[in-house]
């Protein structure tokens, strides 16, 4: 939350925690998932796409930055960035809501673009909410600081 005093010790702790959690979530889990899938189906070329790691690095940078600068205006674009990156990531990962497989002469195509719009709605709102929350807080702060214009 904005306006609260955050010590440097707490900032560093939060940033390190964000680094560890996001590295596990975006790098370690996808890597071992790829190793597991390759081991289970050795004849297939199942690999984790490179974009997963590329997005993972961006997520880590933004999350660590947001944790370090928590409570400050600098954190706002980082929080919004994470939300927008989530939208792009989901879009990429689901091929824009159009997933297809082909096996034994049968092709299956699952289309769910409208559903995808609904699924990314919370992330889009999170991207908008972060700057709005900051603006609302600033306005509240300014109105508190202004002298009262009440009748003498």
């Amino acid at each position, binding site marked *: 939350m904005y306006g609260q005093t955050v010590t440097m010790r707490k900032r560093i702790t939060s940033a390190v925690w964000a680094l560890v959690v996001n590295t596990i979530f975006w790098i370690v889990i996808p890597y071992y998932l790829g190793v597991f899938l390759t081991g289970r189906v050795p004849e297939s070329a199942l690999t984790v796409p490179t974009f997963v790691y590329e997005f993972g690095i961006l997520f880590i940078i933004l999350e660590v930055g947001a944790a370090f600068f928590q409570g400050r205006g600098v954190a706002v674009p980082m929080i919004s960035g994470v939300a927008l990156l989530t939208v792009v990531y989901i879009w990429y990962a689901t091929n824009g809501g159009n997933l297809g497989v*082909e096996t034994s*002469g*049968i*092709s*299956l*195509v*699952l*289309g*769910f673009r*409208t*559903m995808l719009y*609904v*699924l990314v*709605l*919370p992330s889009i*709102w999170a991207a908008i*909410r972060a700057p*709005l*929350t900051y603006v*609302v*807080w600033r*306005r*509240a702060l300014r109105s508190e600081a202004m002298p009262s214009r009440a009748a003498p």
Partner: protein
Amino acid sequence: MGIWALRGVTVAVTLVVLLVAGTVAYSAYEDYSAVKAELAGGSQQAVGAAVLRGSTETVSINITVPNNGLYPLNVTLSCDYPTSNVVCQRTSVDVSPGGEGVLRFRMTVSDVTQFEGSDNQVINGTVAISMMPFVSLTVGTNFGGFVKTGGGQ
């Protein structure tokens, strides 16, 4: 005041997403169960006939499509023409929630002798099931299996 309004929007967005995801999942499950029950042969809802006149065979399939879900369902059958002697009409049915519709599919093979003694005749067909407006599943498969080289039903 402002912060509470933002929280209100967050709650509303979350509820909308949960509601849509929940109802879509429920509808998909109900429709899948209905189709599965139909294919299991519990009811005589899929009726097929292959009529042979000379060397021309007409395949007719009438499928009753139930919709137990909460969203309108559209089922479409169509096929490409790998050779000029296969004529297949695209057919589609819209089924409103709680109702059922009949899909009437016709396919005419003018020279059925080419199918005799061969399992490799391919008529590329497409079955598209759409739970409007959220999800659709398109299955591309071989409709050559519908053609009975011996004729009859």
